């Protein structure tokens, strides 16, 4: 997955700067909200249940304040990334027990014609495992700051 290709998936209308839920289900609900608002899904039920089933098998937090909830679902017709920031941090059952402040929600249809879903998942995990980029991303409060930081980090 090339950096430029990945960067093309981030959108301002798919950025939630103020996640204030305090449960896994609440956070997933707020992350899915922009999909509904932008008519990218018809209703939230199926996608939320599929995401929750995935979390029940083990948190998608990779520790160090980051989580990457993800699933394939028939509810969407393209690969979509929603970025969410929780300024206060949320208990997301992270392996290191730390609260999560930065979420990357990644959803993809079962038929993902370009086969970008798994490469995107892998790439995001790789990016946030870089201590410098992760620390900078965790400081971001707006979409502009976020995308600029990411572009810089990937340069």
């Amino acid at each position, binding site marked *: 997955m090339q950096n430029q290709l990945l960067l093309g998936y981030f959108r301002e209308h798919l950025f939630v700067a103020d996640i204030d839920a305090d449960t896994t289900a609440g956070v997933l609900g707020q992350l899915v909200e922009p999909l509904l608002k932008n*008519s990218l*899904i*018809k209703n939230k*039920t*199926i996608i939320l*249940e*599929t995401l929750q*089933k*995935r979390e*029940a*098998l*083990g*948190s*998608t937090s*990779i520790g160090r304040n980051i989580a*990457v909830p993800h*699933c*394939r*679902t*028939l*509810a*969407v*017709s393209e690969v979509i990334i929603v970025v969410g920031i929780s300024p206060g941090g949320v208990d997301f059952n992270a*392996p290191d027990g730390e609260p999560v402040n930065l979420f990357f929600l990644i959803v993809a*249809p*079962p*038929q993902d014609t370009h086969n970008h879903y*798994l490469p995107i*998942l*892998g790439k995001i*995990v790789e990016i946030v495992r870089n201590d410098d980029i992760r620390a900078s991303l965790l400081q971001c409060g707006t979409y502009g700051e976020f995308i600029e930081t990411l572009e810089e980090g990937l340069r």
Partner: protein
Amino acid sequence: MAGKSQLELLVQYQDLVLMLQELRDEAVRGIGFQVENLSRLEEAIQELERALHPRYLRTFQRIAARQHRPIAPVSRDVCLGCFARQPTSYKARAWDDSELITCEQCGRILYWID
């Protein structure tokens, strides 16, 4: 399961079956997410099998023998499994929970996502 149509249950069924397949895949496991209790997912799949009308489940399994993903989303009246255009009248019929609509070209069960 309450409040969901048979088609929605079937959609969820395919989502979970695919999740199970991918979580068993080495390439997916290699990304590094923690996964425990896969048996919990198997139980959820079995629960859906019990909630589904046997006729619907049989249709799904019959198509699954030929197509890796038996349900295809339909967007703007196009089957995203094979890109065949679907008659506009199908959409209204799909809302009625008494029948499953299949694509005449690829045979997949159709699910309108818009």
